[in-house]
């Protein structure tokens, strides 16, 4: 646990100093939300719940992949990953530390995005909005696991920044479908029973990609 | 003969795409073989020069 805490603190401290990843995430999220408002011209309120939920998830996947690339570029510049890889640390531990850091960044970005969503889509800070927290949280976990695993790949390539969304978005499709549906139902005030099936898919996705990261991260980051 | 154009289009596309892929593979394969042959010849020449050189140095 000590090593995990140290690794996580290192990532978060680096981020606090530069703030690049979170700022990229927030900036892109706002831009995507604005673009969607222009594109669909929503009236707001409950009847645009589906558009609002969709906008939020689109902002998450595109801002999230950009953020992950940004974090990796920073990592490569200061040579941190290389130093960590020569250390005798467990690779699985490294995965969970990186994933948690990624999770924190995306969660901060999404919180800001939700506040802006409420303004743009004329929503209220009420129980419906709170009900959206669970699918969002589940989606962020899966997305963080996925991008952490894939950023290990894309970070080494010249075209990595381009490639990461191309690899990540199709893999994320099931969580995207389930997440958008569950969020839209939550915003529309549907009962919990209707949303349950989507939560199951989100949980299955999270379990799949967290365990895949745990088992395969070693093969991804090992050099040579 | 209703919908015959659709049937024709579907099967033409299948065979055209498969044929294009085969042609593409064959040409790539031929190019690869040529480059291997050229590289082998070049390596043989280089090896010869490397092997001959100490003798040249000794004689001069």
């Amino acid at each position, binding site marked *: 646990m000590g090593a995990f805490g140290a690794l996580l603190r290192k990532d978060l401290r680096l981020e606090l100093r530069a703030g690049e990843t979170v700022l990229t995430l927030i900036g892109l999220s706002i831009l995507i939300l604005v673009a969607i408002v222009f594109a669909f011209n929503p009236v707001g309120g409950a009847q645009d719940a589906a558009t609002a939920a969709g906008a939020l998830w689109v902002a998450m996947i595109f801002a999230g992949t950009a953020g992950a690339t940004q974090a990796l570029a920073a990592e490569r510049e200061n040579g941190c990953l290389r130093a960590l890889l020569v250390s005798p640390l467990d690779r699985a531990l490294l995965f969970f530390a990186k994933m948690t850091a990624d999770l924190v960044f995306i969660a901060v970005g999404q919180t800001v995005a939700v506040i802006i969503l409420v303004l743009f889509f004329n929503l209220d800070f009420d129980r419906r909005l709170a009900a959206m927290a669970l699918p969002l949280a589940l989606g962020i976990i899966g997305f963080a696991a996925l991008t952490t*695993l894939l950023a290990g790949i894309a970070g080494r390539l010249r075209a990595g920044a381009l490639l990461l969304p*191309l690899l990540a978005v*199709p*893999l994320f499709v099931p969580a995207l*479908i389930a997440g958008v549906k569950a969020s839209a139902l939550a915003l529309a005030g549907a009962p919990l029973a209707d949303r349950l*099936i989507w939560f199951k898919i989100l949980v299955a996705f999270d379990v799949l990609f967290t365990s895949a990261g745990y088992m395969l991260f070693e*093969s991804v980051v090992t050099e040579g | 003969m209703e*919908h015959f154009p659709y049937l024709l289009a579907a099967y033409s596309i299948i065979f055209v795409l498969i044929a294009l892929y085969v042609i593409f593979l064959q040409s790539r394969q031929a190019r690869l073989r040529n480059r291997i042959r050229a*590289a*082998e010849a070049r390596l043989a020449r280089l090896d010869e020069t490397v092997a001959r050189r100490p003798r040249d140095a000794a004689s001069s």
Partner: protein
Amino acid sequence: MARSLSVLGRLLTVLLMLTAIFMVFAWVPNEAEQGLVQRIFYFHVACAWVAFAAFALVAVGGIFFLWLGQTVFDDLAYAAAETGMLFCTLVLITGSIWAKPIWGTWWTWDSRLTTTLILWMLYGGYLLLRALSEPTPQIARFAAVFGIVAAADVPVIIVSVRLWRTIHPAVIVTREGTHGLEDPRMVITLLVSLAAFTALLVWFLTLRMAMLRDADRLQTLMRNIALAEAALED
């Protein structure tokens, strides 16, 4: 020996393919409800079977490559991804052409179509990854991981897409259940088509794997040339 075997294999593939074409166009009876256009179905299903088998091979090759570290498994995975992509493209195109007269539209977000499209994007990403990077062992491992993760994701994709479509109001009433192959000749035609495309898959895989071996050999040769040149310099 290997050479005569490959010639025999090609001969068999061509023969099977010609038989399948003959059966589809001249032998099998028309389907009662959909008529002539239903004949697309035989090669469409064969393409789909080959594409999915190839994508499964990408994951199998990846697992064995990570486990045993032998290049031949990586070559298998790469070759399978490329071949699978070709047949997946054919599935999407022939499906569209069949859907137009039957469903009245080129594309619907039906669960099978959507799943196939997502698969197409997944393995397109895989091929881009391989095309944009140097053929190093590390990239091979990355690709193996992606291939395995993608295959593991497929069941979740299928379930989520199916739920998404059934809970959503369907624009067009799909008639997936109407492939009733009531005539035994239809079943035989389908089986021969499947065999022909499986043979085609094996042929493409061996061809592509041989090329990857050659590319590897060329790389070694170039490295040796560079070494010999460096030796000449000093």
